[in-house]
């Protein structure tokens, strides 16, 4: 049905903040290995040990991406490592388990790459998070829930986000994202 709103009215309605013409691209990102590392004690020595093995550690709630590896600092002394680099995985498996807990979550998470000019404003249909660039900077993450599903949102670009969610909920989240 054609839109019958008057177009030459004195002060017309503004365009929708959610224009249908601007598409949101949702793609699943394939990551071979996902590891969660957590230190049993919070101290700089332990951080140093880990940094020597896997490279720079981002500050809390930030991400660090290099080559085929992305490290997200999800809590004090807790990191999520997403990598397609087998060498990194080998290093991870050799980590001292008296100092760090290491959990393989490769099968437990699915990652969606959400991009588009209006990605931020479209994602704001979900969590009560300020997606403005000054509040949610590129290179940082927020842990929240989207459509009642626990989700970690990483901002990798002004118009690009990566959503990490539990595998069992992923189909439902993907359907919600596509509807948004």
């Amino acid at each position: 049905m054609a839109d019958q709103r008057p177009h030459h009215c004195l002060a017309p309605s503004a365009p929708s903040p959610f224009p249908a013409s601007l598409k949101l691209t949702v793609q699943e990102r394939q990551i071979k290995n996902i590891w969660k590392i957590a230190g049993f004690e919070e101290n700089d020595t332990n951080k140093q040990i880990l940094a020597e093995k896997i490279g720079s550690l981002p500050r809390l709630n930030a991400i660090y991406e290099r080559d085929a590896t992305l490290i997200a600092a999800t809590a004090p002394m807790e990191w999520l490592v997403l990598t397609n680099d087998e060498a990194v995985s080998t290093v991870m498996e050799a980590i001292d388990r008296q100092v760090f807990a290491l959990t393989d979550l490769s099968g437990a998470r699915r990652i969606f790459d959400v991009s588009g000019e209006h990605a931020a404003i479209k994602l704001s249909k979900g969590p009560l998070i300020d997606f403005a660039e000054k509040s949610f900077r590129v290179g940082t993450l927020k842990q929240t829930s989207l459509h009642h599903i626990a989700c970690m949102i990483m901002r990798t670009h002004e118009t690009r986000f990566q959503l990490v969610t539990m595998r069992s909920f992923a189909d439902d989240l993907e359907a919600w994202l596509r509807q948004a």
Partner: protein
Amino acid sequence: MSGYRLPNRARLNAITVPEMPCQFHFDGKEYEGFAGDTLASALIANGESVLARSFKYHRPRGLFSAGSEEPNVLVTIDKDARREPNQRATMVQIYDGLVASSQNCWPSRNWDIGAVNNFAGKLFAAGFYYKTFMGPSNNSWMLYEYFIRKAAGMGRGSLEADPDRYEQTSIYPDLLIIGSGPAGLQAACHAARAGASVILCEEQPYFGGSLLGDFAHINNQRTNHWAQACIDELLSYRSVTLLANTVLYGTFDNMTFAGVEQLDGYKATASPRQRHWTFRTKQLIVATGRVDRPLVFPGNDKPGVMLLDGVRTLALKYGVATGKKVVLFANNDSVYGALADLSKAGVNVTHVVDCRTDVALEYAEQVRRVGSELIKASVICGTGGFRKLTSVQIAKWENGRIRGGSFGIECDCLAVSGGTTPLVHLGSQQGMQPVWNEHLSAFTMPLPAGTGWHGAGAVIGEYSLHAALKSGQRAATAALEALDITPKPASSIHITNLDLPTSPNNIAPLWDVPSPADTFKQKAFVDLQHDVTVDDIKLAKREGYSASEHLKRYTTLGMGVDQGKTSTVNGMALMANQLNVPISKIGTTRFRPPFSPVSLGSIAGEPVRSHLQPLRKTPMHQWHVDHGAEMMNIGLWQRPRVYYQGSETLEEAYIREARAVRQFVGICDVSTLGKIDVQGPDAAEFLNRLYTNSVAKLPVGKARYGLMLRKDGFLFDDGTTWRLSKTQFLTTTTTANAALVMAQMEYYLNVWWPDLKVHLTSVTDQWASAALAGPKSQTVLGKVTEDDVSTEALGFMDVRSITIEKIKCLVARLSFSGERAYEIFWPANHGDYIWRKLLNAGKPFNITPYGIEALGTLRIEKGHIASNEMDGRVTARDLGLGALCSSRKDYVGKALMNRPALMADGRLQLIGLVAKAPFALTSGTHLVRNETMQEPAESEGHVSSPTYSPVMEKYIALGMLKNGRKRHGETIYASDPLGGSHHAVEIVNPVFYDPKGKKMHG
């Protein structure tokens, strides 16, 4: 009222578009309007007069205003499932195919049988319900309520499910501006130029507010063109969001505001139909404007009596005249500005009635110039006509009294203005107190500094166009300073072509006009929506309900859809007069959300149907669906219930599946089991403190069944603990309690034992899992792995890492079914692949996938407990699991588990039940001694888990019964009076199958 389209719409620049006609239906009759029309403007243009019936007296009512303050014309939009009652006709945009109907009338709005109430007006005075519907007995209310409920309310909602989609979103601007009139637009432009992120909310479909119906010029542009230029400028800023058709209905703590955006009008094709916005802003500018205040006089509710601003708006904005002979009645100067505008628009104004004695010469000259007659020092004291206004009675007004007799003049529309009422609702919602401004004769809202709230325009008493624009600029500057943003220099403002002011200057308070002695008494209404009259206010005072909040509740003044926008101030002033105190002493009621009505769908309607709650799927979900599984929701999980074959019934299907497990081998998707990875040097100690049995000495490569208690000693959950290494365990929980157990573990670790070096991770999603059960399970497992899975290498409760097709898996020899069985865990991203491997390997052995019904059957036969038995009221001893509670170590719940009451005689204990006749038992059925269900019986327990047992070939159940363990062999009755069943059952040992465990351990 005899409305019609004005011929010079183009000159008016009205927003309606004649080139785009719309056909719509109202009460079954077809009408034509134009795009841009509201339902109200279109109906008036079609000459309709009676558009509604009043709430209590069913009096004929016509349109009263042109905005969201409309108290009279509430209509029902659409039909069937989309029916939406109580919509203000002034807020409904018409479109081709719109269907609307009047409400609260029968058989029609013109002939309403309910109008008989009007003749019993005395009976229906304020407080009628409270005084009348008492006694004679305490139960009388039950009878009255039936009829009151039938009569109460206005429109009727649909009983069908709402087919529309709603959306919710949130936004965090620097500055939120409510209202896009002159003050709001000016503020938005000023803030946007400085670089602030701005949201501009407008309740109407078009921005501009009063600027759209004005002949004045701002900076040499007509007001509507100036508004258009502002909107164009705002659209050029990326940091600005413009929201039309968006009502900001509520204010909440911490600068949180809620609004609802109506998308694409009321069209059924709109998807989503409405969007709920949560605004969390740093600064707020309230520029909500004002509405005309009615005058209270006898007969002031006739169809044809309207607010002056409504008449003016309809003419200038929609190109609709409300009558052929229009009389204006006011107590302030705005009437002369309106007269000039209406005359320019082509509306025939015959008389202007002004209650004041002193009227400026220029105004009198204006009246003469347009061919009207000015009647000074006079009031309207009555109206003629029934379904439409035909005349008004006029009397002299001196010193607040009618003097002499009255005379009548013919007219079909009376436009009244008793001043204006700034819309202070939003500040009031936050507890800010409106203050009485004697000069303006209105409550304004001074917003305290430092709160982040700024007022602009009428809400702070800045009525004139110039003052409103200036105040918008000032408010924006203050907001920018609070945001640490440097404002740009303020733009200059020049107002020209303003013939006469449209602001209510020189107001002479006029709160109530009595009926003159020479006419019969007519009702004078204060609140049109709830039929509250001047007499009701007087009655409230006599009965002691004189405080503003009491007055509201006693008379219903200010309640309803319009939230008292046109009635509250008049009501408070009348009460002040009754009490002989200034109105400032009375104040207003505290307004509450919503400012304007919003649908429940917008607030709670987003998560519906498939989005009601998120669904969890196992990695093998699609396989189950493809192979005939009936999926059912268990918590958030979707699990296969049974896999139907042919025309099987549910019972036939699960019996077949359970038999196959006992005879050959079955496979069940148990990925939903909660799984928690427990790591750390102190992991063993941590688990040892949680579980009732010892975990500390559990060898690596072994699993142990254990119980977890709540702090109060009741059973919380059960599961197995697998020791994978010295520092790593994998614990399983029931599906239902997975999240609770994880949360409880985190709590203990963080609050009770922060010194323990332990880290927890939920790995429920990491592992796809299957239970491979049955006599042939070992053979099947051996076919998919090269690892040794012989009884010697993988004994009962052993845990091993095995490889299936190069994929590392975990396998534990555990059994829930009572058969030899294995729980196999593999990475979820290989879920479907390994599942198919196992099925293929099992084909020669008649492997059968089984669902949770068969799973339940097998575990009931074996006497294994599940959530049905662990219902939060039982202890480990009640379930016969006392032996699992160590006496040699401490653990959570141990101290309180031994309370006398939890060890006393008479507690419910786990039993088995066998139906003596072939009748299915049902969960929750009470266990009683009485042989028939007719006589009252004491419940001695209940059935917890019933099934048909293929092994016993009988209906059996687990249940909880008083002193049950001592009563094996007794006969008792499973009674369900509501369901109409009463069956004899024998009490037996709860382990029906292989009590010595030979099959399981073998």
